[in-house]
């Protein structure tokens, strides 16, 4: 390890990693190769379970007792890692190779101050004095753009927000100026606007220090934003690798192609260009097919050729180190247009069935009033006013803490509103808690939950859970009738009928989410609140579940309240969009209107923050400063004024004094902002696509 080393930082050759259980050997990574040059960043993309994190752990030589490298080599700056002594490894880890994990809170020791955790890194690895280490910690904390470094260093991790914690983890990784930084889904746990800021930080720091990066993510858009090269993994194998431009614009593997067709890019729309889900399921590591792993799900599968034997990586001539693991890549016409799925006619929204008027929900967090504590009010929802029509999809967009879950609870009747009114079919339900609602009302408003691993009771069979919903909604006269209805519901969500007797743990995430949807529609719900129903699913499954929701909605004329923070999917499937910030509705209009100027400044920042996996797209970068204020202590005036990049365009301190009124602009677009009309008129689209604007 010399300072003048110029070769590749990391070279992985034909790496194979297996995990050993008592029963058998389970290969997790097979024949994986990659090279990272100094200053380069490599993106490792794939769905959960494809082995991308295992590669990272293999590089760190931290596979646990069951995992073992069974073949190939990993060379770091020319040194072989697989046969390295534990002492040498310990010297490398943290100093030369640093890793950043997904959960920032889990990476920080809650019992130590941030400062103490930071300064021990160079003290251990470089043996420098405490004073020098402290100086460096101050410098690094300033580098990761945290305000008031001295105060931060004295803080304990729980006193910082998620975004700040992740910045501290990044600072810790950079304390010893490593040559290689491994980031394992570093922003998955963060909100979009915070994610955008952290991603930009990582990119800037990488440039500043010349650090090479291995960036692991399931999000193609993020990889496009941060990396130079990409390696797509599927079921333990790299299926395609090359430069970002080659892989994104000239993909040579069916899986990569299918992946791109499954994510909602600008231009996709549920009526004219629907997403194309990848058929079938991800193979389990112990049940991989012979030959090409992707074969059974591939459109170009050719029996006898694709399943004949192991398929090596093949070089594509002309491109820069562009390889694909597809036998037929020369035979496939990669530019053939997508076979059009049947175009569905857009369903016309019907009459208004749900109306919210000036809905408010305050929580009283009585911090020990008996002993002189101050009673604080959390204003979770402030004056929500909107209506939803039959058969329409209304998206509710906002980051965590914006009050969307509270709103859902009030609508479902789990909480009662502080003031305001909810009317369902001209009947007020805002003061009726769920135990006093009629069975029909309860069955009419149902919910689909976010986390597929939490949505089903793990100790009850799938069929039993659906039948229970039928029993509660008083559907069917006998057990037999209910069972038939349950099987019909399984058909509706396109699950095999045999699943009725399975336990939830035997199902994949997407299948569980389908059961959750079947359960919500058990009583022919007319309003379904879908709380981020696809955000926890893999890309290839997301499209299928979203389409299923749309399909059932169209068939049953359901009103769908789609809560999400992911603007790409919202643009794809929503008819109207409602943007929330800190309990307020800041913008409300049709999808078209919300995604094109004029924007509310917050919507503008959100749009800019969403990573888009399309090289043709150029975005105006708007990075928000700071964090979302606490709903316990909202800022005076406009809720967004503390982070608003356009505050200077409003005369005087109006934003800090007064809550802006809801203004209705052209065609019914409503925006809650003080900006003068001429500023709205002068706004440019955030997203430009190869010359012409799409949003």
């Amino acid at each position, binding site marked *: 390890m010399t300072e003048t080393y110029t070769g590749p930082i990391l070279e992985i050759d034909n790496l194979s990693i297996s995990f050993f259980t008592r029963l058998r050997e389970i290969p997790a990574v097979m024949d994986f190769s990659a090279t990272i040059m100094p200053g380069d960043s490599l993106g490792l993309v794939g769905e959960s379970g494809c082995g991308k994190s295992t590669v990272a752990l293999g590089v760190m030589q931290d596979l646990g007792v069951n995992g073992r490298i069974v073949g190939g080599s990993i060379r770091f700056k020319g040194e072989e890692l697989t046969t390295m002594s534990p002492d040498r490894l310990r010297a490398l880890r943290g100093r030369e190779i640093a890793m950043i994990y997904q959960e920032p809170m889990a990476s920080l020791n809650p019992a130590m101050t941030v400062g103490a955790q930071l300064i021990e890194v160079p003290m251990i690895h470089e043996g420098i004095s405490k004073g020098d280490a402290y100086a460096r910690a101050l410098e690094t904390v300033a580098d990761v753009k945290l305000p008031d470094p001295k105060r931060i260093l004295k803080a304990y991790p729980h006193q910082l927000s998620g975004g700040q914690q992740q910045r501290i983890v990044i600072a810790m990784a950079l304390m010893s100026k490593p040559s290689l930084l491994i980031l394992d889904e570093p922003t998955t746990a963060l909100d979009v606007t915070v994610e955008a800021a952290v991603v930009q930080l990582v990119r800037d720091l990488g440039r500043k220090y010349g650090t090479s990066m291995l960036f692991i993510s399931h999000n193609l858009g993020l990889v496009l934003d941060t990396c130079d090269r990409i390696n797509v993994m599927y079921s333990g194998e790299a299926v395609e690798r090359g430069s970002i431009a080659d892989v994104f614009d000239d993909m040579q593997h069916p899986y990569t192609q299918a992946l791109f067709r499954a994510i909602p890019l600008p231009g996709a729309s549920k009526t004219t260009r629907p997403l194309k889900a990848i058929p079938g399921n991800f193979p389990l590591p112990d049940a991989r097919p012979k030959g090409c792993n992707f074969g059974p799900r591939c459109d170009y599968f050719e029996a006898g050729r694709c399943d004949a034997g192991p398929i090596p990586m093949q070089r594509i001539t002309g491109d820069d180190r562009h390889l694909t693991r597809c036998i037929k890549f020369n035979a496939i016409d990669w530019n053939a247009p997508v076979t059009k799925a049947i175009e569905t006619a857009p369903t016309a929204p019907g009459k208004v069935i749900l109306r919210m008027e000036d809905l408010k929900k305050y929580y009283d967090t009585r911090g020990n009033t008996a002993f002189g504590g101050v009673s604080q009010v959390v204003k979770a929802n402030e004056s929500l006013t909107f209506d939803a029509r039959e058969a329409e999809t209304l998206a509710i967009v906002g980051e965590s803490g914006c009050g969307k879950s509270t709103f859902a609870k009030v609508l479902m009747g789990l909480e009662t509103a502080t003031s305001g009114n909810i009317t369902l079919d001209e009947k007020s339900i805002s003061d009726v808690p769920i135990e006093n609602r009629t069975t029909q009302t309860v069955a009419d408003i149902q*919910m689909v939950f976010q986390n597929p691993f939490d949505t089903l009771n793990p100790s009850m069979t799938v069929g039993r859970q659906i039948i229970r919903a039928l029993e509660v909604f008083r559907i069917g006269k006998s057990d037999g009738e209910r069972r038939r209805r349950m099987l019909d519901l399984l058909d509706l969500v396109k699950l095999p009928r045999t699943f009725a007797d399975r336990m939830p743990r035997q199902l994949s995430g997407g299948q569980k989410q389908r059961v959750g949807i079947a359960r919500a529609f058990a009583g022919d719900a007319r309003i379904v609140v879908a709380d981020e129903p696809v955000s926890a699913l893999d890309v290839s499954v997301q499209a299928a579940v979203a389409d299923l929701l749309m399909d059932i909605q169209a068939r049953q004329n359901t009103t769908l309240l789609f809560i999400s923070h992911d603007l790409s999917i919202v643009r794809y499937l929503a008819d109207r969009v409602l943007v929330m910030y800190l309990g307020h509705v800041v913008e409300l209009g049709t999808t078209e209107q919300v995604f094109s100027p004029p924007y509310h400044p917050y919507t503008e920042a959100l749009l800019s923050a969403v990573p888009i996996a399309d090289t043709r797209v150029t975005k105006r970068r708007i990075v928000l400063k700071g964090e979302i204020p606490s709903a316990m202590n909202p800022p005076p005036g406009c809720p967004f004024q503390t982070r608003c990049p356009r505050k200077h365009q409003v005369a005087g301190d109006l934003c800090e004094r007064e809550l802006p009124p809801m203004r209705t602009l052209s065609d019914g677009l409503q925006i809650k902002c003080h900006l003068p009309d001429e500023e709205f008129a002068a706004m440019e689209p955030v997203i430009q696509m190869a010359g012409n604007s799409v949003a």
Partner: protein
Amino acid sequence: MEPLTWTGSLGQFLNPVLMITATALVLTAAAQIIAGLFAPAVTLQSNADGSLMARGGAFGAVETALKWAFIATVVTLTAYLAAGLVMPYGRAGIVGAVAKRFLPVFIALIALFAVSMTFKRRLGLYGKLFDSTVGMIGFTLVMFWVFSAIFSGLFDMIATHDPLRPISGLKNKLPGVSVPEEGLYPHYLLGGDNLARDVFSRMVTGSVVVIAIAPLATLFAFMVGITLGLPAGYFGGKLDAFLTFIANLILAFPVILLFYLLVTPEIVATGIPSYMAAVLFVFPLVFTAVLLNSRYATQPAKRTVILVVVLGFFGWLYLSLISQEDTPLRILPAWLDGFDVNSGILVVFVSVVFVNAPTVFRIVRGLSMDIKTRDYVAAAQTRGEGPWYIMLWEILPNARGPLIVDFCLRIGYTTILLGTLGFFGLGLPPESPDWGSTINEGRKLLLIYIHPPLPPALALLTLVLGLNLLADGLREESLRD
């Protein structure tokens, strides 16, 4: 008849072998500990044939030697038992004779293991137990005593003599002494106690008392803890504060004093123990009723039938249990009173529930506070389920892992508690062969004769150890998926 020696003719050959293997075991174990201080870190090596090698060199050799010494010792010990089974009576000494008496238990154990191992993939958590060595050892120890209790309690098989009948001349006699009376089993295998009764038979019969009472009493404690812990955790607030306070109060009360109070004649005369029993035993009834009602509330016709049948039966059991002669609670007429329970056993039940329920309450409360935040609970709430359905059908089944483990551990505590109660002369009748009472009696002459209290003490030790190991195994395996 000649008195039996410990190992009989078997000893001439096996004793030296055991000496050698045991010495080898001790030496290699010591060597391994010393070598472990200097050995290099484990590095995995793959061999050409695809197998794995963890260590080699001197340290590896010591490890291998230790392994073989251990196996040799176990084989030798098993040989004592096996030879005892096949050799004619008396030739294999006391060890052989005891092994022969326990033959039905061994056969049952082997049959149980054969069946369980064959179908272990289909048996859920129970089947997974057979993946864990610790769990299997624990299960073997527990089932050994369970089968002993079954065979001696139901079929009168294992015990050699009447556990309550003294035989003149055998007071405090050493193990292997021959019985002077004709027509009886020819020896006191483990000697006689200070009332000239057979120690071996008393130990075996004692297992019946322990195995019959301990799990049942623990089950009652769980019912109480669960019925109170679920709402405390689910609703929270004032109810939770109140119940937790009560639980803390009971936990802080000196237990032994409580036991004495329960059997003090003045207190018994006021009827307090009976009333306490009446209150505590009503919990399982309430629990069952709520469980079934919340499940079938949507189908009233079915619900009513099921509730009437089940509650009728349980109600009768309950009333029979609490209505006693000579107590203020005489509810059922004699012809309806199915059975009477010894008042001492009632005291045992009340004390066990009293001691254990608060702890179970706290565990269940914590678990339900955690599980109530899950989405499937929210899903149940949004379809308008009542709180008891959510608690009993959505939360409780998903809290079962930690509860099963705790149940096993708690049977162990209860067994010791039974011993403690017996030791103080509380609860069971004085001549009862249960292990605690037997140990207490033996204690008095411990300095002169150690053989009467030792077998029940070892029996208690193995059962509790087995329950703890079983709990460990279950915990390990339930965490696995």
